[in-house]
């Protein structure tokens, strides 16, 4: 009994838990043995095109039929319809008919979500300066994304899932949207899972980073820990021999020498190092895996 209670408490700390998930397509397979997304954080999901980010998000939202595995959201199966009351979703493109207006979106979603809050929706559409009667097809991309976000937030979700939501919009609008995310996350029960190609957004806002490559999770780390964990090492060809090959996570060579990605604690003394950003880490690992194959 005590063990069950403890397990339930542990589960409640994770907004999303994925166990032994697999989904096979003809040319691609997603395989995630275990992934926990802690409650109260912004989890950035990074990876190249076709790495499996959207497939993972679709699996979490139960949009695809997985071959095996279990996904829980707030401790409940993701197949439970009740769980979806707690989720707000923004995809890379607005999914409402182009002739809809912000008012139509309200009418439709009010009829879907039990917790729909007209005042909150009006607050966000007002904040984003979205006209009530203008057709979506006449909106700019930034306005479309803002409308998607307003629609995703107006039913008081606890989990916000964003699939490339900030791609293709200008830095000013992206910054406005990031501010909304930061405001949303002030409530410690709230969680954001955001996949993005724009690494600067992830670096700016995320607390944790999950890197997916070839359908597998390469790492899932706290962002600050991750940024301290690795170093970029610049060295000449002759200095390269002083480095243990097993300590090299990624390598870029040029005529003058090499740039290495190494664990910070494995860098030999006397080498010139620089902090590795998420993009550096991601690119080096992809390059290294590509070279190994």
């Amino acid at each position, binding site marked *: 009994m005590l063990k069950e209670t403890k397990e339930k408490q542990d589960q409640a700390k994770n907004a999303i838990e994925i166990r032994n998930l697999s989904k096979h397509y003809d040319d691609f397979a997603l395989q995630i043995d275990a992934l926990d997304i802690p409650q109260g954080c912004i989890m950035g999901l990074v990876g190249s095109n076709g790495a499996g980010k959207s497939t993972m998000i*679709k699996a979490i*939202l*139960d*949009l*695809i*039929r997985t071959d095996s595995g279990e996904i829980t959201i707030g401790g409940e199966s993701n197949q439970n*319809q*009740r*769980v*979806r*009351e707690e*989720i707000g*979703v923004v*995809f890379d*493109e*607005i*999914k*409402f*008919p*182009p*002739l*809809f207006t912000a008012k*139509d979106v309200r*009418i*439709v*979603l*009010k*009829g*879907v*979500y*039990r917790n729909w809050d007209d005042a909150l929706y009006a607050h966000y559409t007002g904040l984003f300066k979205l006209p009530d009667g203008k057709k979506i097809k006449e909106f700019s991309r930034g306005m479309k994304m803002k409308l998607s976000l307003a629609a995703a937030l107006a039913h008081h979700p606890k989990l916000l*899932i964003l699939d490339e939501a900030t791609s293709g919009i200008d830095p000013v609008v992206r910054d406005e949207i990031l501010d909304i995310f930061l405001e949303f996350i002030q409530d410690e029960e709230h969680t954001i899972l955001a996949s993005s190609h724009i690494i600067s957004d992830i670096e700016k806002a995320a607390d944790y980073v999950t890197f997916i490559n070839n359908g597998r999770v390469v790492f899932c780390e706290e962002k600050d820990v991750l940024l301290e964990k690795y170093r970029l090492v610049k060295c000449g060809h002759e200095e390269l021999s002083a480095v243990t090959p097993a300590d090299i996570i990624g390598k870029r060579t040029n005529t003058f020498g090499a740039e290495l990605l190494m664990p910070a604690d494995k860098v030999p003394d006397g080498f010139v190092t620089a902090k590795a950003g998420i993009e550096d880490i991601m690119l080096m690992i992809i390059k290294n895996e590509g070279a190994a194959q």
Partner: protein
Amino acid sequence: MKGLIYKDLLGLKQITVTIAILMGFYLFMGFMSGGESNQVGYFSIMVLVINAMIPLTCAGYDEQCGWDTFGAALPVSRAKTVAARYMTSLLILAGSLVLVLIADLIYTKVGGYQTNASAYLYPFATAALYVSLMNPIIYRFGVQKSRIVMIIIVLIPTFVGIALLALLTADSHSEWLDAALDSVLENVFTQPGAGVMIGTVLVCAVIYALSMLLSIHIYQKKDL
């Protein structure tokens, strides 16, 4: 589910004016066709044919904007999502029937024509069966492929049938066929008995329900 029905109906507002104009045109054509009776039959056939196409239109709008992916992330089960589409179709068919009844009233009161229930019963049944056939195909193949599938399973046999009929009736020894056709048409355009009416509605309702169950089965297995 209510929200999904609103979504389909709101999506149709862009073609409301076109449909209203077409209905007005066919109402007028019913007067102009110059027949002696059952003018509303012409109007009801056209109205119900137009409205039976609406599920395809709704699905087309959904496919165009990627609604299916978003819709499946909402707190509505896939079974209810499909049921909402069938409900929308039924509402539109019911609305169409009301329009036909109003038109019938206009034809009888203003035009002085005589009509009977066959004018609504058979077009309504055909439209319901068409929706029952169309929806599972749309859920299985998507809108674009559905158009091709419909051509294969409906239009081609229809054209082949018409061609065969034309060939047979061109034959001077086809009196039996002429007589059979006359008999069918006579029965179709005479006032159906209560048994025929109830039976037709029941058969349509059962097929409609089976079609919905099949669509749910297809949609539940689909990757979106």
